[in-house]
């Protein structure tokens, strides 16, 4: 079953651009990325699009489809009606390179600023030992494929470019949470989370969790627990007092 699908694709670069209309053949079982490839092959040979695995694991083909941040390779055409016009634009939060390709350097700069994993000394036999129950919380965040859709949808930087200096974005807040929860790690990142990575900017409206293609519960399992850990350290007089008199070890 094929049909002629109507698409609007943003074409342009940093100097300007606009949505262009295309009619492209759509076949049963295809995803948006298939259509973009057909468009590239048949009508717009110079259309820039970043992609790699086509299996939802590399995180390269992020775009905004009908205004929602999604992976093009994981968005089935069957989710749209045959009469619908599908609009595809580049990720809005990042500088555009060309067409659907954006410059996501901001994310790598933030990643480099995160205090590195600092494990405690090895056991006497040279091994590290930890229990599965101790690491499984952190393992959820290791599913992240760094597609940066959460960063793209986060209104803190999407709507306020100036906040990029002070706010690391949801992907890196869960990276901080992952490290802070890790049973082997020895660095306390709670002050840095609040002061340097802008945890307080997050108002937990959960858009990051809504768009995550890996289904990571960024807010409930990462950002909110991190906020609570910061409360322990910064805003709760009882836990602060307990830690000062040695009655509340960090564990």
């Amino acid at each position, binding site marked *: 079953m094929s049909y002629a699908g109507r698409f609007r694709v943003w074409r342009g670069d940093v100097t300007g651009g606009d949505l262009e209309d295309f009619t492209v053949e759509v076949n049963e079982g295809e995803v948006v990325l298939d259509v973009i490839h057909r468009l590239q092959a048949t009508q717009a040979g110079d259309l820039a699009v970043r992609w790699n695995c086509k299996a939802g694991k590399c995180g390269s083909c992020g775009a905004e489809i009908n205004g929602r941040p999604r992976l093009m390779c994981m968005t089935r055409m069957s989710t749209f009606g045959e009469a619908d016009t599908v609009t595809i634009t580049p990720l809005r939060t990042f*500088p555009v390179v060309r067409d659907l390709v954006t410059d996501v350097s901001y994310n790598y700069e933030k990643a480099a*600023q*995160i205090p590195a994993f600092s494990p405690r000394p090895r056991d006497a036999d040279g091994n590290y030992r930890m229990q599965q129950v101790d690491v499984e919380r952190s393992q959820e965040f290791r599913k992240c494929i*760094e597609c940066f859709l959460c960063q793209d949808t986060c209104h803190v930087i999407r709507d306020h470019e100036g*906040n990029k*200096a*002070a706010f690391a974005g949801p992907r890196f807040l869960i990276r901080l949470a992952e490290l802070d929860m890790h049973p082997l790690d020895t660095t306390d990142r709670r002050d840095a989370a609040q002061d*340097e990575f802008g945890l307080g900017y997050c108002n*937990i409206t959960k*858009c990051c969790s809504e768009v995550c293609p890996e289904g990571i519960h960024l807010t409930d399992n990462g950002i909110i627990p991190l906020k609570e850990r910061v409360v322990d350290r910064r805003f709760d007089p009882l836990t602060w007092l307990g830690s000062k008199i040695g009655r509340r070890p960090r564990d």
Partner: protein
Amino acid sequence: MTTTAPRGTGAVTPGRGSGGPPPRRAAIAARHLRTDRWWLQPLITAVVLLCFVVYSSFRAFQNAYYFAEPYISPFYSPCITTGCEGDTFPEFFTGPSFISPAIYILVIPLGFRGTCYYYRKAYYRSFWLSPPACAVGEPHRRYTGESRPPLLIQNLHRYALYGALIFNVVLTYDAILGFRDETGEWGHMGLGTLVLLVNAALLWLYTLSCHSCRHLVGGRLNHFSRHPLRYRLWTRVSRLNASHARFAWLSLFSVAIADAYVFLLATGTISDLRFF
């Protein structure tokens, strides 16, 4: 995955959403390109929350029809003033007669729901439009979130939780007293008893599924294996936590319904359906 480079200087400049055109982004003038009914959910949330605020304010200031032996409205319990009709809690003081007894206790449930992580999402989206929906532009020129006063106060959620837990005990006690009849004899149950019991159960579910509760019972630990009991508690609270939003709404409705039921009994509009 992210590399773990040595810690750099970090981002230390406070953010300032200038509201001006962001540099070097794709030139898309539309505030959003969503084609679904993204406005429906924030609209429903705003309408329902507004209805509740109007109704609960009216009832809290009304200072009447909140007690119909043996039931007391959850808006007025615990009854801590001598002017309060209920008899389920020690009466600590006599306030001015023009101040409703509900006003003194309002701060706890209001504080708990107001700083609740779920309700924050709901009202930031619905009332503050920050953002109204995912990938829909917000109207504010500047945004600092919860990084500075007054919203720093949201970090006191756990103290509101402690208060809410005490209130739950009182409201559960109220529900148990519903097994007495009008004369104070045990062995009675009416529809009002059931309404208060369901309300107390939903309030417990809402309170225990709270994110702060999840943190306090075990979330703060990094070594669950050293604390098996707290780990079990944490896993159970985590299971409840997945439905926190549902419990937030259900308990909001149950409080309003329990109050309305007592109101109808107290005004004589209906009589209690007696089971035994």
